[in-house]
């Protein structure tokens, strides 16, 4: 009898146990649901006026950013920045999307040229004009072309921070050995003359290429943005009319294909930066953002130059900027704006740019004493700053159409690596871009832009 009761008690106990477990499983969800609308209303921790969460760079760039945040904390105590790493630009955007749905978004996020617009369209970015003014950020001190890229309908949503342009990189030692001048080619025609002298082959195998192309995974559509302009073409007009089938656009892609196929002096690299550093290619076009790393790792003298011209000069801007999310409280938004002021300014901004290769985004930073000295030590870094006034914002097709970068990039792969007919590929790409542009156009009409 006793035994029977105890067994029943045991089962009862199990029953309660399950119930309790179920309750326990529910409890964390309940408060989260109720407190969700104000995720950032928690009091500031750590004795500072405001603590903000910032999602920034990963890898070596992230380490430099960490150093900059440490400097910022040493310089003031009002704002505490909790810098968190989510991964690449793509991964940061993915996690931010998920975090917005879960109401756990950060206060401040690093968004790349192709991503910030998606969040603007979703109306989750804060207009920054008043906040910037309050934090002493003077828009007119910024490089105008960079500053204006983050403006929609007169409001600033995206402040330039880690901004870059493509640069022509060349191996000075190899250029010298080939009897070429220590400068970049003025035109692609000139480089076509130089290239055979730079090319080294072992039978049919290219040992050292004259030039290395990047693949779609390394943003080849960004590099090619400059090239298509140089030939007089464009990806699209600002109102999303795709222009890939225009004669000059076709000509530019045909040239890219020829460099590999017909002229045979270029290769498509898995990692063009690595190929350049290890001497597998004599020249390449890469972001300024990799410059400091390349200068550090290359065992030869590195030269940088403006992009080559064809019909005209063409070079896009790129990189990433900072945006404040709408879920952020006023107090934290103000703190985030102060951090932006530091990260783009004379101390933080100069430290950041000099240690990465990204361009100084403010004129006062580029003209500061520390920068003048820096240019003297590393003259290669000045190329990007000199080239900057000649750059322009990218075509809408790449930066505003969701997935536009990869759609164009994969088309380029079909042309360069797959040796497919240029017009056929661009026709496919145009159809895809047209289709993906539809929702963007609709949203823009809804936003009244």
């Amino acid at each position, binding site marked *: 009898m006793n035994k029977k009761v105890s067994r029943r008690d045991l089962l009862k106990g*199990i029953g309660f146990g399950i119930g309790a477990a179920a309750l326990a499983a529910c409890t964390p969800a309940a408060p989260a649901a109720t407190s969700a609308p104000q995720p950032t209303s928690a009091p500031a921790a750590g004795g500072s006026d405001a603590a903000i969460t910032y999602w920034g760079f990963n890898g070596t760039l992230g380490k430099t950013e960490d150093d900059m945040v440490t400097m910022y904390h040493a310089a003031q105590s009002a704002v505490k920045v909790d810098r968190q790493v989510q991964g690449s630009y793509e991964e940061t955007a993915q996690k931010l999307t998920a975090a917005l749905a879960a109401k756990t978004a950060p206060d401040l996020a690093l968004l790349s040229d192709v991503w910030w617009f*998606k969040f603007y369209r979703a109306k989750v970015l804060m207009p920054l004009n008043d906040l910037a003014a309050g934090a002493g950020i003077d828009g007119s001190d910024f490089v105008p072309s960079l500053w204006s890229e983050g403006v929609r309908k007169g409001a600033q949503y995206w402040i330039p921070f880690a901004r870059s342009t493509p640069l022509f990189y060349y191996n000075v030692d190899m250029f010298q050995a080939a009897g070429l001048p220590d400068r970049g080619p003025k035109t692609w025609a000139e480089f076509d003359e130089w290239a055979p002298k730079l090319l080294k082959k072992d039978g049919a195998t290219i040992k050292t290429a004259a030039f290395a192309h990047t693949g779609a*995974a390394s943003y080849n559509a960004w590099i090619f943005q400059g090239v298509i302009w140089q030939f007089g073409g464009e990806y699209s007009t600002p109102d999303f009319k795709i222009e890939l089938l225009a004669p000059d656009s076709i000509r530019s892609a045909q040239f890219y294909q020829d460099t590999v196929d017909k002229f045979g002096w270029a290769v498509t690299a898995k990692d063009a930066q690595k190929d350049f550093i290890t001497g597998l290619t004599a020249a390449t076009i890469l972001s300024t953002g990799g410059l400091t790393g390349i200068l550090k790792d290359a065992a030869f003298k590195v030269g940088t130059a403006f992009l080559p011209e064809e019909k005209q000069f063409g070079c896009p801007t790129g990189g990433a900027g900072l945006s404040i999310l709408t879920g952020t409280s006023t107090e934290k938004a103000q703190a985030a704006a102060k951090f932006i002021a530091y990260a783009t300014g004379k101390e933080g901004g100069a430290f950041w740019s000099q240690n990465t290769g990204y361009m100084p985004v403010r004129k006062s930073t580029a003209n500061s004493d520390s920068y003048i000295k820096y240019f003297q030590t590393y003259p290669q870094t000045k190329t990007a700053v000199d080239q900057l006034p000649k750059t322009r914002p990218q075509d809408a097709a790449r930066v505003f159409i969701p997935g536009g970068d990869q759609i164009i990039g994969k088309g380029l792969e079909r042309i360069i690596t797959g040796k497919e007919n240029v017009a056929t590929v661009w026709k496919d790409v145009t159809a895809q871009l047209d289709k993906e542009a539809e929702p963007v156009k609709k949203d823009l009409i809804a936003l009244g832009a």
Partner: protein
Amino acid sequence: MQLTKHDFSASIAGRIRRDWREWLIFLAFAGPNVALFAIFTYAPMVNNLILSFNDWNMISSDKAWVGLQNYIDVFTDSQFSRIFLNTIVFTAASVTLVLALGLGGGLLLNQKLRGRNAARSILFSPHILSGAAIAIVWIYIFDPRFGLIYAVLHPLGIQSPNWLTDPNWSMPAIVIVYVWKYLGYATVIYIAGLQAIPGDLYEAARVDGAGAWMRFRHVTLPGLSPVMFFLVLTSILSSFQSFDIINIMTKGGPINSTNTLIYHLYELGFINFSIGRAGVIGMILFVLMFVVTLLQLRYLDRQVNYA
């Protein structure tokens, strides 16, 4: 020993109590699992089905019901047939190779050889490494100008292919890495299967005059059939879902040559943020795996000899 009315009702009450108790026991054992499945498998599946009929970018507050439009978009995409074919090629090649080489490895390492345990450990070790780490190492191995494969082929006068940038070689490259990672696992399962075959069956076969091939054909293979069935099923399902290696090594490229359904799902959902179309791919994968599992249960199971 006479049943009174009182006793009768008491026994009914007892039975109800017993039934109730059995239910509780059932709930206690099955409940947590069922709940986990319901929350983490069935609910997302139903949700995925609903999403596949919607146009949504994951942030916008409004999801628009678009009926079958996402399905039309996915199936009329010019690259879809290629991606579908890639998935079949990748799965067929990797599963066949893993099963065949695994059987060879299993038979070899089931012999009493010197250094057998070391060899088993070495063969199995890739399986416990993360796919991402393996992929990064293999990027270097495949490099046509300084990679390990180059170092082996070059002295022989053979030119190393551009594994990861040539669309004709990228799929073989991915299959090689996948097979390398999963071979050890199949081998270990085969070894376990081989050791479960009773030794007296071999003795009896030998007494009957069966040679090595006949013993393999009529004792080993039937004896391994449950293990093989298990391996076929699990490797097909896992290769359908192989994402890490592809994402790190090729991102589906060059020119979609290694783009499989699972990577395409990621691409549509988390690069283009077209959640509806990603949902369609999710449904296609679900139906595919469901059919594969059904077919196997229906046809392969009959061939299996559960001794």
